[in-house]
């Protein structure tokens, strides 16, 4: 293998029940070029046959120094960069960043802007979950859901494209509100999407939820207890599937989330199947939120009173939102200039990925794939 594998420190595990045949431990590299590591994650696996004795994640292949770039850009200039972190949930990234800077400036976006933000963010949450579902199912061997989810995700991307001209890295929001008023027919498009996608989610569930093989592959796989999840700082659907009813949208409401009525789904066992169910329910809850938001969207301005040159006062702020993958936080230190002194992004994928090791120990190679899928990581965000 290579020198790196020899010095794996957290692979020194308590010895399993040794047998006469245990002398052959296999160390294999999964990734960075591997079809199921969702990009450039490299996991070094220590195997006994097919049983995983330990893992070590090697990350950073996609490290672009986003935080360093932030220190050399103005607040406005940095806004599009955040879309490139979790590129499948770019809208959420933008929302977190804009709200954090607004908080630092002590301004608030107008109500209409907040509603638009909620609609787009929740649409993005559905898109992110759809992408997760497709790739996760593909990892477990079900090819077909991928195409179904991508077909439906396309409708969301079309709405994004119509709204702000971009499909993936949207740069939809600006500090202080939104740049663009909704286009004519936006509400109709969103409502059409709601009626379109609800039966499609049923369709995914028909393929998977009661599928015997799916159940066998996901139940009791990658179990993480609530205590472990909290200690490891795991957030988002992964935490909720372990039974912790915690969602920043409810716990510390931001944007306009306090106006809406929705449930937080939680799981019981913290296994892969529960995480699957939690995300499926979350998609439906997002539909509920979007429906309420699009029906109750107020008239008014979409841009708050922010100065042309954004120059926050000296100070520091931490603001976090519930991104599709968990708590996405921005810690911004301002020195009073037009450029942030330091921006720290608290990436949910990065922290969640850390739980991989304890989730897969003692399982099989195939489960590692399932667990990487169920953690729903995006390497752009892990590596930044």
């Amino acid at each position, binding site marked *: 293998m290579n020198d790196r594998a020899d010095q794996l420190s957290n692979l020194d595990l308590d010895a399993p*029940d*040794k*047998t*006469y*045949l245990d002398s*052959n431990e296999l160390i294999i590299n999964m990734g960075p070029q591997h079809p199921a590591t969702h990009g450039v994650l490299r996991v070094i696996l220590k195997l006994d046959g097919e049983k995983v004795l330990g893992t070590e994640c090697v990350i950073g292949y996609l490290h672009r120094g986003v935080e360093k770039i932030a220190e050399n850009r103005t607040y406005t200039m940095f806004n599009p960069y955040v879309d490139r972190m979790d590129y499948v949930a770019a809208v959420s990234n933008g929302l977190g960043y804009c709200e954090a800077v607004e908080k630092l400036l002590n301004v608030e976006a107008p109500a209409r802007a907040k509603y638009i933000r909620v609609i787009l963010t929740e649409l993005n949450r559905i898109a992110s979950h759809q992408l997760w579902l497709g790739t996760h199912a593909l990892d477990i061997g079900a090819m077909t859901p991928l195409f179904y989810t991508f077909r439906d995700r396309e409708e969301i991307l079309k709405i994004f494209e119509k709204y702000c001209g971009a499909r993936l890295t949207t740069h939809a929001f600006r500090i202080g509100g939104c740049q663009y008023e909704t286009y004519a027919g936006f509400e109709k498009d969103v409502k059409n999407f709601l009626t379109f996608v609800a039966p499609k989610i049923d369709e995914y569930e028909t393929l998977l939820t009661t599928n015997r093989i799916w159940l066998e592959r996901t139940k009791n796989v990658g179990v993480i207890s609530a205590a472990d999840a909290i200690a490891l700082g795991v957030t988002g659907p992964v935490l909720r599937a372990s039974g912790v009813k915690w969602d920043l949208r409810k716990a510390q409401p931001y944007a306009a989330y306090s106006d809406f009525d929705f449930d937080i789904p939680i799981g019981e066992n913290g296994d892969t199947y529960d995480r699957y169910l939690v995300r499926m329910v979350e998609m439906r809850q997002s539909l509920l939120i979007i429906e309420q938001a699009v029906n109750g969207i107020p008239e008014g301005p979409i841009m708050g009173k922010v100065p042309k040159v954004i120059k926050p006062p000296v100070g520091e702020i931490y603001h976090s939102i519930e991104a599709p993958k968990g708590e996405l936080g921005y810690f911004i230190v301002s020195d009073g200039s037009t450029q942030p002194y330091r921006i720290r992004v608290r990436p949910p994928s990065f922290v969640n990925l850390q739980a991989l090791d304890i989730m897969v120990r003692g399982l099989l190679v195939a489960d590692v794939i399932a667990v990487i899928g169920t953690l729903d990581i995006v390497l752009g965000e892990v590596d930044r």
Partner: protein
Amino acid sequence: MNPILNPAMNSALSGGAPVATPFFFYMLSGLAVIGGILVITRRNAVHSALALIVTLLSVAGLYLMLYAPFVAGVQIIVYAGGIMVLFLFVIMLVNIERASKDRRFNRIWPIGLVAACTLMGLFVSAFVKGRALFPDRGMALSEGSNTQEIAKALYGEVNRFGQYTFGQYTFAFEIASLLLLVAILGAVIMTKKKI
């Protein structure tokens, strides 16, 4: 001439075309012997295993020539198909690079030579005294007057095999299966410390 290699008998048994010709016999035996030599001389265990498969398949061919198709089929399905796969399975887990650097013939080779010579002597004596020890089917065939009838009788080879195993030789058959059971238990005990 060996009656098995008798062309007339051949055509009667196979329904026309002679199969058990001297050419096939020598070819298959030659392959088996070459394979056997390769098995013990190759340094790489996987190559040895592949050579062993060639030997086993050649022997299966020889069985076919002896009009024992059932034994040939079993030879393929059990030895070449099943056991060799398990062999390879185990060999693949062994560190070939290190194993191939080890000395192939270690100090106990004289003992091996003695054992091989003894076995060889046994075979030779069996070959010489064979007619007295075993009922010679080939002789029986040549004594029969009507080859067509014999061919018919042989066609029910599987039936006869079944009747022998579950009739005349039931005890030996069961003893053999008991032996295998013991081997299985031994393997389980060897691999698992706590059961």
